[in-house]
């Protein structure tokens, strides 16, 4: 399980990093924490000719919280999110989801930007980015631009990034006080990739009815999914047992998972319904 040969560069500025990636015309890869990329290299599923290490780039490690929302630098580690107590109130859904990522040692190295760029269909961060309408700020040879999460994830391990582009930060909208939310994940062992997970949130109008419902799931397709059919069941209604049961059924009907070595399609379909149900029960409690 030894890695294939590659060149290595450790630039100190973002323009330098972009230039290094661009010059190899698609054969270079950025490396952040390496917790997803290095196993790919070990399995020889990826054979870049150059790794561009992002670790010396300043300004990518901050967590900024303001009335504009929560902004995570691309090199923010799972560990940093876990340690930041402000996020308990500033973005409890993010905190809850990230608590499921991998294991202690991986959490000390793995990064937000790395997870988004890697785009594993069962990864939590892409699911949160999509569910929360995140904006992903990116820099490449044609300059800086922002990609909506809804446009970012294009397939298994496939994103809208071009080979010269580096994620610099992810911007999550502000999280209002009083928002209802739930996150439920199932994995056979703690820290395994999710077999499926559901992230839900909604706000309430003055009559206690749900509005602005967002329901996202991971692990059931080649990318994270929003479930507008389920959101439609919730919006305008009080979230009681009957509505939750309807939402569970709508969630199972809305997904079309494949059979794989971990679970059958039927199992995943049922699992998604159950996880949405549990997440809604938590939200409504």
């Amino acid at each position, binding site marked *: 399980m030894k890695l294939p040969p590659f060149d290595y560069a450790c630039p100190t500025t973002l323009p330098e990093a972009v230039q290094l990636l661009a010059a190899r015309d698609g054969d270079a890869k950025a490396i952040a924490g390496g*917790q997803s990329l290095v196993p790919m290299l070990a399995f020889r599923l990826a054979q870049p000719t150059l790794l561009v290490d992002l670790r010396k780039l300043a300004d990518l490690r901050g967590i900024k919280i303001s009335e504009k929302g929560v902004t995570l630098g691309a090199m923010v580690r799972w560990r940093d999110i876990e340690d930041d107590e402000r996020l308990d109130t500033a973005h409890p859904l993010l905190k809850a989801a990230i608590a499921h990522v991998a294991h202690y040692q991986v959490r000390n190295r793995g990064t937000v930007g790395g997870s988004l760029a890697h785009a594993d269909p069962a990864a939590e961060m892409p699911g949160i980015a999509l569910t929360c309408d995140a904006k992903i700020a990116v820099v490449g040879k044609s300059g800086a631009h922002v990609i909506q999460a809804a446009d970012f994830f294009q397939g298994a391990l496939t994103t809208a990034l071009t080979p010269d582009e580096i994620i610099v930060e992810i911007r999550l909208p502000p999280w209002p006080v009083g928002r209802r939310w739930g996150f439920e994940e199932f994995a056979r062992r*703690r820290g395994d990739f999710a077999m499926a997970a559901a992230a839900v949130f909604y706000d309430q109008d003055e009559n206690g009815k749900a509005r602005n419902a967002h329901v996202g799931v991971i692990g059931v397709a080649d990318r994270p999914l929003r479930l507008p059919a389920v959101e439609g069941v919730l919006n305008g209604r009080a979230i009681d047992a009957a509505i939750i049961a309807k939402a569970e059924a709508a969630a199972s009907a809305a997904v079309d998972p494949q059979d794989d070595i971990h679970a059958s399609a039927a199992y995943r379909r049922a699992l998604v319904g159950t996880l949405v149900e549990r997440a809604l029960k938590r939200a409504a409690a």
Partner: protein
Amino acid sequence: MSVRFRVNGQEVEVEVEPRLTLADCLRHHLRLTGTHVGCEHGVCGACTVIVDGAAVRSCLMLAVQAEGSEVLTVEGLSNDADLSPLQKSFRKHHALQCGFCTPGMITTAHALLSEEPHCDAARVREVLSGNLCRCTGYISIVEAVLDARAAYQPKASASDRSGDRA
């Protein structure tokens, strides 16, 4: 490429290919074979070392990424004469059989206890969930780590955490 970093308190400089993992660098270039390689793809934890205070999978780090860092391996947790408190506790609780996972268990536990000396059994289990053991069934390992907490409590002097006798 030339890489310079500190290992167990000593400055080292090695000449390596970029693709060499930190695990292989420690084992082959520095002859520190206490760090074990089990899976070489980041799931078993046998290769755990502590880099700049954080437990990491050394099979998922390139040696070139350790430039300027402080690396602590299992060899650095005790001096030659005495076992560290964690090592003594592992011995007392029969927390190893073949010993293959043991360096990773001990470095991970050392990192945990250094940061969270009051951790409970649930937290120990959570943190060690990234380290696989085929022999022991884990119970003795958890008990050994819990029993070693006493040596990491703030009122203990720093030297108690290594094998040094005061």
